[in-house]
């Protein structure tokens, strides 16, 4: 569990840790669905973009799903939030290219 001062009274961070893990998992799964859906959407009109998105983003998103389960067993770090944001922005860019280009 992460370091930090214990609260003066009440239970420890146990339930908060569980809620955080669940929030990470459902966000990562939603992101995986989004990447697959947008990748499939653009595959017909812009195959190179669809394949590129699937090849690059799906493994990264799947890694995020797996890492999300262990997020509270290591000190907090900005890498997972940054990766999550980068993946969402990537999906957005692909959708923009599809909407404007097709």
């Amino acid at each position, binding site marked *: 569990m992460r370091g*930090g001062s214990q609260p003066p009274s009440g239970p420890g961070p146990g339930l908060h840790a569980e*809620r955080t893990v669940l*929030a990470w998992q459902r966000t990562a799964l939603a*992101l995986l669905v989004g990447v697959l859906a947008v990748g499939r959407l653009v595959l017909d009109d812009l195959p190179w973009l669809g394949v590129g998105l699937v090849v690059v983003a799906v493994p990264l998103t799947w890694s995020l799903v797996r890492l999300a389960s262990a997020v509270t067993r290591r000190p907090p770090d900005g890498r997972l939030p*940054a990766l999550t944001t980068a993946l*969402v922005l990537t999906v957005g860019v692909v959708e923009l290219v599809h*909407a404007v280009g097709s």
Partner: protein
Amino acid sequence: MAGRRRWPGRVYGVGEEPDPRFSFANERTFLAWVRTALALLAAGVAVDVFVDDLDDGLRIGLAVGLTLLGMACSLGAYLRWASSERALRQRLPLPTSTTLPLLAFGVTLLGLVVFVATLA
């Protein structure tokens, strides 16, 4: 995780470790914003793919607007997570959210566009 430098240094290089409950709450807030961003992206995709009875320019504009709003929410979520975590570590007041008024204004504006287009 001894020896592994935490990133970014701008956040973890200042102050001291806060109560873990506050860090968890900050992360869950970030994740809620990310899910909001994904919902906006999904709405943009839905308008792009499934809406046929709007003028092409309006349809594309709406899809682009929703997608850009989703991307802005995602980026704003990360920046807010970083600035909040930094404030927690330094026991400073939490920064105000600029993403919240952006989201409210953006959704209102897009809704007005659809409303006017429907009446026209």
